[in-house]
């Protein structure tokens, strides 16, 4: 093929060496710094959460009008982040986009950890989590009670649960051959033992490759509708309700687009760091990143369209309450949040019309960060501004998050990065077996299977 995906004339052996290096040597100082920082952040969050469990949700900024706040914002935010991974690995795989091979492993890992983070919030935001963790799952119990399958929250439980499981399986399946190579490289007996178990005794026989390829293809096929369904279901939490500003049919596509948008932004953020810190410039090339940025630009405009569309529908519906809800969003007490959102999500990505911008590391890093912030505020705007002024003016209120809200939010980032850092420390951050195929082909060793 024309485009060069792997630069620096690397051979498969070099690849192994490069990818395995961070795994095999003692972690660098910078890794330790990041890890401890993440640990501290998580510690703070855990501390505040414990106190919250003891005293009650009253420590949060919630009130009788704003039943949901920052926690739900975080839930939607993290689930959104969790979309890019599966999308890249599954959908791009089906479309035979070979450039994915450099980045899919990291992206998938990110997905899994993001979903793990997201899953924290629905549990701790409930008034009685010690019951919620059981009663939200339909299992036979001595109360002969089941759950309410009409509730979007139950759909969430299944959707996010399934999404997590399948992503994990998909990710692990991809890891097996690479774990095998790590196993065969390992000198230290313990490491060897561990990777032996993890790789399930993979030896790369052609029969196994045959099944492996089929299974991987099917999993990709299953994940594709799944990834689209998950955020649709999350959007049902709002769309199915009757709250003005929530009750709208555009939410599913709008949410999915938003999810891809924020997810890709997060991937860019992480990739820029990873490739710099672990010297993987030749495998995660600027071409990869530029492609990502193009997608950012596209999805950014999708959400922009969604914002506009919301207003149109509100106006077109002729429902005064609906109209008010949207006007209130843009010009009400929370206008500041709304305009942060528009600026970050719609205006900022426009810079990627320029190739130089698309290929400028510093810039794309900044943009991706801004997009993440913007997407967080998108969820904030949706959740808070719709609730704080709904049907009866008599119960209009204002919602101010407290230190607990922010602290626990920070904690969730800590939690996410703890996992991510462990991942880059112990697992191959690049799908080696797939990249080898690419290398082989680029070295012109006959026509070879496209990973």
């Amino acid at each position, binding site marked *: 093929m024309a485009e060069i995906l792997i630069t620096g004339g690397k051979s498969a052996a070099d690849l192994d060496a490069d990818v395995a290096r961070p795994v095999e040597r003692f972690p660098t100082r910078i890794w330790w710094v990041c890890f401890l920082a993440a640990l501290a952040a998580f510690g703070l969050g855990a501390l505040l959460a414990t106190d919250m469990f003891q005293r009650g949700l009253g420590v949060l900024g919630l009130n009788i009008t704003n039943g949901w706040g920052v926690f739900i914002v975080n839930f939607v935010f993290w689930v959104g982040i969790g979309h890019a991974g599966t999308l890249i690995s599954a959908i791009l795989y089906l479309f035979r986009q070979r450039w994915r091979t450099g980045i899919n492993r990291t992206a998938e890992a990110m997905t899994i950890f993001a979903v793990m983070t997201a899953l924290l919030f629905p549990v701790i935001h409930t008034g009685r989590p010690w019951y919620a963790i059981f009663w939200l799952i339909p299992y036979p119990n001595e109360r002969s009670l089941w759950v309410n399958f009409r509730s979007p929250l139950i759909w969430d439980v299944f959707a996010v649960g399934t999404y997590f499981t399948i992503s994990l399986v998909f990710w692990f399946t991809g890891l097996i051959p690479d774990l095998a190579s790590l196993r065969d490289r390992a000198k230290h007996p313990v490491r060897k033992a561990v990777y032996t178990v993890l790789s399930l005794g993979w030896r790369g026989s052609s029969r196994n490759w045959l099944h492996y390829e089929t299974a991987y293809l099917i999993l990709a096929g299953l994940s594709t*509708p799944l990834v689209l369904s998950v955020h649709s279901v999350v959007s049902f939490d709002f769309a199915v309700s009757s709250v003005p500003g929530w009750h709208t049919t555009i939410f599913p596509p709008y949410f999915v687009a938003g999810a891809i948008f924020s997810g890709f932004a997060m991937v860019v953020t992480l990739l820029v760091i990873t490739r710099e810190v672990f010297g993987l410039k030749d495998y995660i090339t600027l071409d990869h990143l530029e492609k990502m940025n193009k997608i950012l630009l596209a999805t950014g405009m999708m959400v922009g369209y969604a914002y506009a569309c919301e207003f149109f529908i509100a106006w077109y519906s002729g429902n005064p309450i609906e109209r008010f809800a949207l006007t209130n969003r843009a010009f009400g007490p929370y206008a500041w949040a709304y305009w942060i959102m528009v600026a970050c999500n719609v205006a900022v990505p426009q810079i990627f019309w320029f190739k130089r911008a698309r290929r400028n590391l510093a810039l794309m890093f900044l943009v991706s960060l801004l997009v993440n912030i913007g997407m967080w505020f998108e969820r904030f705007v949706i959740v808070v501004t719709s609730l704080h002024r709904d049907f009866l003016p008599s119960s209009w209120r204002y919602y101010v998050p407290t230190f607990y809200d922010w602290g626990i939010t920070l904690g969730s980032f800590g939690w996410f990065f703890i996992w991510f850092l462990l991942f880059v420390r112990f697992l191959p951050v690049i799908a080696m077996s797939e990249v080898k195929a690419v290398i082989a082909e680029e070295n012109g060793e006959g026509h070879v299977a496209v990973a």
Partner: protein
Amino acid sequence: MEKAMSRSHKEGGVLGLFDDPVRLLEAVRKLRSRGLTEFEVFSPYAVEGIEKAQGLKRSLIPFVTLVFASLGCTLGFYFQYWTSVIDWPLNVGGKPYNSWPAFVPVMFELTVLAGGLATFGALLLFARLPNTSRSALDPSITRDRFAILVSGMNPEDASNLLTTIGAREVRAIVPRGWF
């Protein structure tokens, strides 16, 4: 053959190592042309066309997936129907007991879940994984080299054969483990 079969699950034999997939493919074709069936091919990544050359049948995994996915779908619906219509029908916001549209999301998720897990299960089954007592025949295979393992032949003939079809390196493998 029968004997060979019975013997063959003791996995001994001669291993020939190759440097690139092209030669590997040629070698495999040669072996097949000599009517040899009891050999196994190893590669660091899936080499396209190898299964044809080796004459392997299509994997059965898709069927397994299909079966379990449809099971997940139907059982998923029935479970919801049973809990909310048969076991304890409750008037929830004036909705009918069997509010099937509301059951669709969970049905879908269960379909995917069952299908996905079944696929993985089938992979393990057909690839005989996990099987950690097996060790790598040669560490370089999972890095960048390709190999053919000829079993059920006496070692000399096997190694000669392999060298003739272009193996860079030939080694005898001594059976270990419980096969």
